[in-house]
C-alpha cells in the first residue's frame, strides 16, 4: 500500500528521447518502475531499450493503458505537454521541469481540476514508493520501504532527511515532492489527507520552507482532521525578507510566509517541529518505538 504510485503504476515518459528523459528512464527502470510507454513527437514507432515510443500521449494511453506520466520537456513547452497528458486521461502527471511560467502553471492546475487529474510539481523531484515504484529523479539508494510518509517542498533536503531515516532503520511508505514553485499541483494538505487514509502509514514527516502559506494551511488541517502523528522541519529560519532563496516559492513577502508563522501554527496543531533536520530521526524513533 502506498499513496499516488505503487507496483501497478504504468508509467509514460514524455520527452523520453531527450537528455534528462533518457537518463532518468534508466534510473527509474533500475528501480523497478513499470515504464510502458514513451512520447516523443516525430519519433513514434521507435523503441528505447524496449519501451515503445509514440507521437502523442493519447496514442500511448490507447496502446499501453498507461495511467501516470512524467514530463521531461523544456519549460516553455510544459503547458502543452501537461495539457496533452490531462486531456488523454492520465491520472497522475509529474512535472519535473523548473522555470515554468506561473500563468501556465495556473492554467495547468485549472484544467487538471476540471478533468480530475492529479499534478505533482512543477519543479519537483517526483514521487517514490520505496521498493515498488519511482516516478522522479531522486537518487535510488536512500529509500527503504516502511511506515513513515514524507512530503517535502525541496529535493536535496528531503534526500538528506530520508537518507538519515533509512540509515537509522526508519523506512518510508511514500515520499512526495510538492515542488519549489509558487503555484504547484498538490499541497501538504492534499498529501496529509491521503496519508491519513493509507493504512500502512503510521506517521508523517513534513519538510517545509519559508514562503507562501501551505504549512499554515496544513496545520489547520492537522488540528481538525489528522489522527496520525506529524513531524516537521521548516527551512529558511535565517533567510532575509524580500529575497528569493533559490525556489520561486521561497520568499518572504511583506509579513507573509515567515518561518515563525509556520512553526507557531504547526506547533499549535500538535506537530513536533525539529529545529535541525537531524533531530527528526530521534523524534521519530521515540514515537515509533524504533530501537
Amino acid at each position, binding site marked *: 500500500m502506498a499513496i499516488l504510485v505503487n507496483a501497478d503504476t504504468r508509467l509514460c515518459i514524455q520527452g523520453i528521447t531527450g537528455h534528462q528523459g533518457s537518463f532518468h528512464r534508466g534510473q527509474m527502470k533500475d528501480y523497478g518502475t513499470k515504464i510502458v510507454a514513451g512520447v516523443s513527437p516525430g519519433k513514434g514507432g521507435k523503441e528505447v531499450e524496449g519501451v515503445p515510443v509514440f507521437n502523442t500521449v493519447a496514442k500511448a494511453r490507447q496502446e499501453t493503458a498507461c495511467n501516470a506520466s512524467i514530463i521531461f520537456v523544456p519549460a516553455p513547452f510544459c503547458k502543452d505537454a501537461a495539457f496533452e497528458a490531462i486531456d488523454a486521461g492520465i491520472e497522475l502527471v509529474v512535472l519535473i521541469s523548473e522555470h515554468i511560467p506561473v500563468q501556465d502553471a*495556473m492554467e495547468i492546475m485549472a484544467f487538471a481540476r476540471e478533468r480530475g487529474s492529479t499534478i505533482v510539481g512543477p519543479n519537483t523531484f517526483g514521487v517514490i514508493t520505496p521498493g515498488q515504484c519511482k516516478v522522479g529523479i531522486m537518487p535510488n539508494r536512500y529509500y527503504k520501504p516502511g511506515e513513515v510518509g514524507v512530503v517535502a517542498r525541496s529535493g536535496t533536503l528531503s534526500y*538528506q532527511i530520508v537518507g538519515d531515516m533509512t540509515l537509522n532503520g526508519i523506512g518510508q511508505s511514500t515520499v512526495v515532492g510538492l515542488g519549489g514553485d509558487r503555484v504547484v499541483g498538490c499541497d501538504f494538505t492534499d498529501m496529509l489527507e491521503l496519508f491519513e487514509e493509507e493504512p500502512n502509514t503510521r506517521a508523517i514527516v513534513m*519538510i517545509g520552507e519559508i514562503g507562501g502559506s501551505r504549512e499554515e494551511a496544513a496545520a489547520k488541517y492537522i488540528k481538525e482532521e489528522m489522527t496520525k502523528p506529524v513531524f516537521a522541519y521548516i527551512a529558511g529560519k535565517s533567510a532575509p525578507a524580500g529575497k528569493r532563496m533559490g525556489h520561486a516559492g521561497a520568499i518572504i513577502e511583506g509579513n507573509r510566509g515567515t518561518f515563525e508563522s509556520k512553526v507557531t501554527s504547526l506547533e499549535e496543531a500538535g506537530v513536533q517541529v525539529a529545529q535541525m533536520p537531524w533531530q527528526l530521526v530521534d523524534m521519530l524513533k521515540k514515537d515509533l518505538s524504533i530501537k
Partner: protein
Amino acid sequence: MKLYEYMAKELLGKNGIPVPRGEVAGSTSEAKQKTEEMDTPVAIKSQVLSGGRGKAGGIKFAEKPEEVSEAAEELLDMKIKGYKVDTILIEEKIRIDQELYLSIAIDPVNKKPVVIASKEGGVDIEEVPEDKIVKRYVDPKWGVDPYVSREILDELELDQIVSKQVTKIMKKIYDLFKNYDAELVEINPLVVSGEKVVAADAKINIDEDALFRHKDLPKISDKTELEKKVEEMGLSFVELDGDIAIMANGAGMAMTTLDVISYFGGSAANFLDAGGGASVELTKQALEVLLSTNPNAVLINIFGGITRCDDVASALIQVKNETGIPVPLVIRLMGTNDEKGVQMLKDNGITAYRMMDEAAKKVVELAKEGADVDGNIG
C-alpha cells in the same frame, strides 16, 4: 522582475488605462528641458525598485517651473534603501477626490489570479482592515468578465460614473496581467479626480520565467553586481552580511545550511545553490566567486544525488592547486561517489566531513578564530 513606475505606467497607458501625463529624465538639465511645456504644479518622483519611497523623501512637488530643476537635482543625488536614483518621473499633479486600491495578483493556495480592491487606497494594502477589502478569485480560463467587476464594485459601493470607469479598467488590467505574464499589477492609488479615474501610482512585476515570450520588455534587475555575475553562470545566489561563505546543492539544502550555521552561532555571507549536477568547471567558478568575497571561512555542504561528490572534490583540488585557498575551508560530502571524493581530498591534504552538523560546527569555530586573528570582528 519589477518594472520601474514609469515603465509600468507606459504599459498601462499603452493598454488603455488612464495615467497622468509625465516625462522621464536622467539629469537635471533634461528635467528642465522636458518640463518647459508642462503645466505646473508637478510631482517629481524618484524611480527606484524599492517600496517606501515617499517616506524616504523620494517624492517632491514643484509649484513653479524653476523649482523642478532644484528638486530633480536633489533626487538624482539620493540613494533609497541602497538603490541609487538614476531616473526621475515628472508628472502633472492631479486633484484627488478619492483614492482607491486595485490589484491583480497570484494566489498560490487557490492557484488562481485574485482581484483585490478597496475604497481605502493610498496606503499599503496590508494596513487596510480586512473588512474594507474585496477579494475575488478569477478563473484563468474566463478572466474578468464585466459581471465579475460589477460584483466587486457593488461591494465597494462606488458612485455610478466611477464604477463604469473602474469596470473598464479592471478588464484592461486583467488583460495586461495575462498578456504580459505579470505576477502582480497594482494600482495604488487609483485616483478619482472629478469625473475621471487615473492610475496615480503603479507596480507591475513580470514573471521572469516567462520573459522568453516578451522580447520587447527591457531586462531590469535589482540584484548586486556579484549576484548578477553568479546568476549568469546559472546558479542561484544571494549576498548576505555574515562572514562564512556557503555553497550547497539544492535550494532547500542551501537554506538549511544557513540555518545550521546560525544554530551553531555563526552567520552566513551568502546563499549559493550550486544546483543539481553542476559540472567540475562550474563548481570551480562558484568557489572562486565565494573566495573573492573575502569570507573568514568557507563551508561546502554537498549531499550528492545527481551531483557527484568526486566532481566536487576535483573542482576543489583544482582551485587549491591553481589559485590557493587563503581561508579555512570545511567540506561535507555525502552521497553519490562520496568515498571516492573523500579519498581524493584526503590525498590532497583536505579533510572532508560526512555529517552536516560536524562540518557546520567546525566552520563556525574556524571563522571565529579567523575573525580574531584579523581583528575584524570583536
